[in-house]
C-alpha cells in the first residue's frame, strides 16, 4: 500500500493516470507526446506506476500498451469504507444484545 501512496504523491504521475483514465491503451510514445519532460522521464514514471500496480500493461504485437488499473485504489477505499460497514454491523449486534438484556430485565421485574 505504501507503494501506491508513493506513486500517487507525484503530480506528473497523477497526470499520467488522468490521461490513461481519459484514454486507455496508450504507448510510451503517445504518453510522452503531451508531457513537459523527456521520454526517459515518462518511462521512469510509468515503471513506478506499474510497480505499484496502478498501471496494467498489455502487449499488442510489439507495442506495449498502458492502462489505468484502479484496483489498488479500490482496496484503499474498501479498507476504510469496510470499517464503516463493520461498525454498522456491530451496531446491529449491540442492538440485539441490548434488546436481550432488556427482555431478561423485563422477565425479572
Amino acid at each position, binding site marked *: 500500500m505504501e507503494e501506491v501512496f508513493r506513486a500517487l504523491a507525484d503530480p506528473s504521475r497523477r497526470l499520467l493516470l488522468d490521461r490513461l483514465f481519459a484514454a*486507455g491503451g496508450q504507448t510510451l510514445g503517445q504518453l510522452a507526446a503531451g508531457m513537459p519532460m523527456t521520454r526517459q522521464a515518462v518511462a521512469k514514471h510509468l515503471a513506478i506506476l506499474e510497480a505499484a500496480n496502478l498501471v496494467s500493461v498489455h502487449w499488442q504485437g510489439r507495442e506495449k500498451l498502458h492502462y489505468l*488499473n484502479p484496483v489498488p485504489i479500490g482496496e484503499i477505499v474498501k479498507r476504510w469504507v469496510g470499517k464503516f460497514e463493520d461498525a454498522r454491523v456491530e451496531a446491529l449486534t449491540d442492538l440485539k444484545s441490548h434488546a436481550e438484556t432488556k427482555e431478561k430485565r423485563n422477565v425479572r421485574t
Partner: protein
Amino acid sequence: MSAPEFVYTVYIAAPVERVWNALVDGDVTRKYWGHENRSDWKPGSRWEHVRAGPDGVVDIAGRVIEIDPPRRLVTSWHSPDGEGDPARTSQVTYEITAMGEESKLVVTHSDLNEPGMRAGVSQGWPLVLSSLKSFLESGKGLAALDRKVKELSD
C-alpha cells in the same frame, strides 16, 4: 484483434487453483460477486452470470471461447437482449499466473462497443476484483455481513 478497452490486474495471496475456482464455481462467485457464474465450462458452451436470489435473473451471458484450467479462460460477454449481435458482444479474458506465494490475475475486456456496457464494466471490474481479493484472502467480504445478519434473525 483490436487493443482491449480495459486491462485490470490484481495480486491475490492465494494459489492459482483457488483463484480459478473463484471464477468458475457459482457458489463462490455468489459470495463476492453477488452473481453465480454458471456453465459446464467446455469450449463452445454457454455461460451465464445469474443474479443471486430467488428470481435468478440472467444479467450477462456468452460462450466459453477458450478454457485452460487453472490459467486461462476466454469468454464472450453480452447482455441477454444482445444475444447473437456481434456489435453488442464483447470478450473477456482471465489470465492467472503464479507469483511465488501469490497469484496474479489479469482481466482483459475487449470489443466493448456498447456505451452502456462500457460504462458499467469500467465501474464494475475494480469493485469485483477487490471484493474477490478480500474474499480469498480473509474469507470475509459480503459473507461476513450475511453471517451477522443471519445471526440476528435467528
